[in-house]
């Protein structure tokens, strides 16, 4: 039986260089259970842009069991970061640049970093959009 001589990077050890740093360029649309996200890239950072928080949550629910852990291991190995945005607000970060804190542990999404400010901003933006849509309907 063959085995690997290279080992995956430790998720918790940011001091060691990634064993397989990759650069990714995308022009991609992903739909998970009908929730659509565009995927753009700056090379080392993948930007997932969702239209709404419910869309983002639907996509999260479409992940396989252990998906976040596998994704995080892959991102650390490749020195890549995934940034999830809703209405241009960063709501979550996974991978090399993620810094999960207390909120992530409370929500049991560690090692994914949750940006509370971004979530609140997205909620506010959605509420404002709903009010604007309602105003247009009533006018």
């Amino acid at each position, binding site marked *: *039986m*063959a*085995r*690997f*001589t*290279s080992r*995956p*990077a430790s998720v918790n050890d940011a001091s060691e*260089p*990634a*064993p*397989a*740093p*990759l*650069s*990714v*360029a*995308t*022009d*991609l*649309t*992903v*739909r*998970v*259970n*009908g929730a659509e996200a565009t*995927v753009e890239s700056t*090379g*080392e950072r993948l930007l997932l842009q969702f239209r709404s928080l419910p869309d983002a949550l639907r996509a999260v*629910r*479409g*992940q*396989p*069991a252990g998906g976040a852990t*596998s*994704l995080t*291991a*892959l991102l*650390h*190995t*490749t*020195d890549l970061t995934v940034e999830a945005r809703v209405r241009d607000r960063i709501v979550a970060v996974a991978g090399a640049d993620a810094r999960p804190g207390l909120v992530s542990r409370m929500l049991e999404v560690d090692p994914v970093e949750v940006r509370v400010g971004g979530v609140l901003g997205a909620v506010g933006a959605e509420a404002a959009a709903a009010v604007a849509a309602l105003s247009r309907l009533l006018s």
Partner: protein
Amino acid sequence: MADASTPEERIDETTTWPELAIGLYDRLTGRGAEISYQFEEMEVHVPSGTGEDAEHAEWRLDGTVHITTRERE
């Protein structure tokens, strides 16, 4: 048990995503190579688990992904 010594052997033996990435890196690096994937409304039903009663999420991909390697810092 023998160690895999070539990228070809390693990529055949991948069992995890990090291992796959390392195999991909070994193939691409030092050659200025790029690997491109083009998806045209590709549909994948991703199981939530391994049991018979696992639910399946519908994933659809449309667009392109280009992967190159970077220098280890």
